[in-house]
């Protein structure tokens, strides 16, 4: 899947590209508005990441261009500005999602996958990992074709981990994803630990408890290997 990264800050651009590359995305980059425009005119992508703070033009205008040309690319806005107006305007113009800097790359990854999935209706809605199968449409999880019952939070957790398989996920990234920014800040990670513990227990009962490993000092990793 092809992703275009339009971001003027070099280090950030490179970091995002590195991460997404290893996720299997094919990445291209643009350093400013005009480069972004050029690339978009020449190629098609599955998803475009647009930074609103571009030096030579408004990210919004790029969105407008894409919509004018009736392009099917998914659009995710990234921005340093925590402005509700920006967010609303971006979404109204046709962006699919809005992510505020600084964000976890795992979160960006999950969002891109989500946006792309939403746009490809013909695609399959199942994520398979080892013996586990997650039906995104029906919101059910099966291990060896047998359904296991998970709470909504546990489903969210699992989906996030599946989007970022084989990645070390920092615990605050997971917490932010599940609880949102405000609430994640409200307490230590005890709350998160207990949720993950419950999820592991249920996966254990189905025989795949080892898919979720804890990484000392940092967080967790989902690896569908025996």
């Amino acid at each position, binding site marked *: 899947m092809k992703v275009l990264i339009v971001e003027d800050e070099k280090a950030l651009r490179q970091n995002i590209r590195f991460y997404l590359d290893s996720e299997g995305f094919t990445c291209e980059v643009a350093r400013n508005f005009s480069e972004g425009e050029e690339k978009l005119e020449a190629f098609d992508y599955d998803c475009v990441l647009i930074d609103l703070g571009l030096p030579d033009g408004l990210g919004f205008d790029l969105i407008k261009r894409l919509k004018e040309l009736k392009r099917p690319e998914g659009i995710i806005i990234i921005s*340093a500005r925590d402005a509700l107006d920006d967010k609303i305007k971006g979404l109204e113009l046709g962006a699919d999602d809005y992510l505020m800097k600084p964000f976890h790359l795992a979160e960006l990854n999950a969002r891109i996958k989500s946006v792309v999935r939403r746009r490809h209706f013909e695609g399959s809605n199942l994520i398979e990992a080892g013996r586990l199968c997650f039906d995104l449409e029906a919101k059910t999880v099966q291990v060896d074709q047998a359904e296991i019952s998970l709470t909504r939070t546990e489903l969210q957790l699992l989906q996030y981990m599946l989007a970022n398989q084989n990645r070390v996920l920092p615990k605050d990234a997971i917490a932010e994803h599940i609880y949102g920014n405000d609430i994640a800040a409200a307490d230590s990670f005890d709350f998160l630990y207990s949720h993950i513990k419950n999820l592991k227990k249920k996966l254990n009962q189905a025989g795949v408890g080892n898919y979720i490993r804890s990484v*000392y000092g940092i967080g967790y990793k989902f690896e569908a290997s025996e």
Partner: protein
Amino acid sequence: MIKLTQITARYFAAATALVLVVWAIVFFFVLRYQILNSIDQALLERKTAFLEEPTLPSPEHDQPLIIRREYVVKSVTAGRYQQFQPYFSDTALQVGENKIFYRVYNTVFENNSGYYELKVLKARITEASIIQSVVIDTVAMFVLLLLLLLLITRYLLTRTWRPFYDLVAQLQAFDVRSHTVLPYEPSRIAEFDALSKAVNKLTQRSRRVFSDQKHFIENVTHEIQTPLAVIKSKLDIQIQDPNLTQDQALFYEELAESIRKINKLNRSLLLLSKIENDHYIEKEDLSLAHVFDATLSAFLPKIEFKHLEVVKNYQQAPSLSANRLLLEILFTNLIKNAIVHNAENGKIEVEINGLQFIMRNTGTAPQLPAHELIHRFKSSGKRESTGLGLSIVKQICRVNNYYFHYHYASGWHEVTVKFE
């Protein structure tokens, strides 16, 4: 404090009074002197006329002869006649019930019968009435002049000084946060013209400075977000290293935690700045209980997890006109604090009575006195808190003129907010 009109009037009145009093006194004495002088001249004239009479009276020894209360003749010795120097004097005669004052010219004359002393008298009645008129006229003039001055002052101040009063009113109404400046209004009067120009320039500069300041914090916090994003993403990549040792993992985690703290601080600062700069001004009618419950619902999982008991006591809750986002932020911060600073199995009590909101929670005593906690950057010592939560609440209250109070007593934290 005294008004311009009053003080001007006072000065005019005092000056006028002084001048008129001095003038009246001087005039009185001058007039009196003139009158006396003319009386004396008249007396001299009458004496001469009297002595030209063909026959002069010749009273008997020692008996003064009084003629029509105008002349008194009395015989005197030759010796006295020789030594006598004519002079003026004043005397008074009792006429019936009245005492009448006279001006007297004393002289001597000689005729066939002998030597005589002559007094020529003139009553001073006219003089008194003249002086009376003078006094009345003076007082009348004083009053008239004063009235005139006051009227002129009033006219001057209301018409000529109108631009001044207008400017005062405008300056009083000027709010640097509004998007207007005081315009330059040219005037015929040099001073007012200069004043208007100066005020216009001043308000322009005020607005500029204010606007710059307002956006300064916002700009700074935005600038911080991007480098933070770079660090965060770099860390995300580093921790993917399969050969990560435990020490390295801890190292990265500590870095990550510091980044989180900076980020939280940055966001809180931005929020504080926005609140201070009136970003949240749109209002709608809200129900306190409703908004609080909605905000609380997001935290229910956390509350259950810590086994906190929540007791609600809502009484008549009228609607409040406020900004919804701001109210949610206020409640969010209070709830967060009530959860974080609470013990396991602790309690949270919420009371809403009219527009008064009280929230209590059990918990350990804060390490800092309450009033310091509320100020920016002093944290309670708990790892998860940035210490800005209460600052944000206080700021929201300040901007909306809500009453805010926090204190800790006997194991309970208590926060009171009055939304009016």
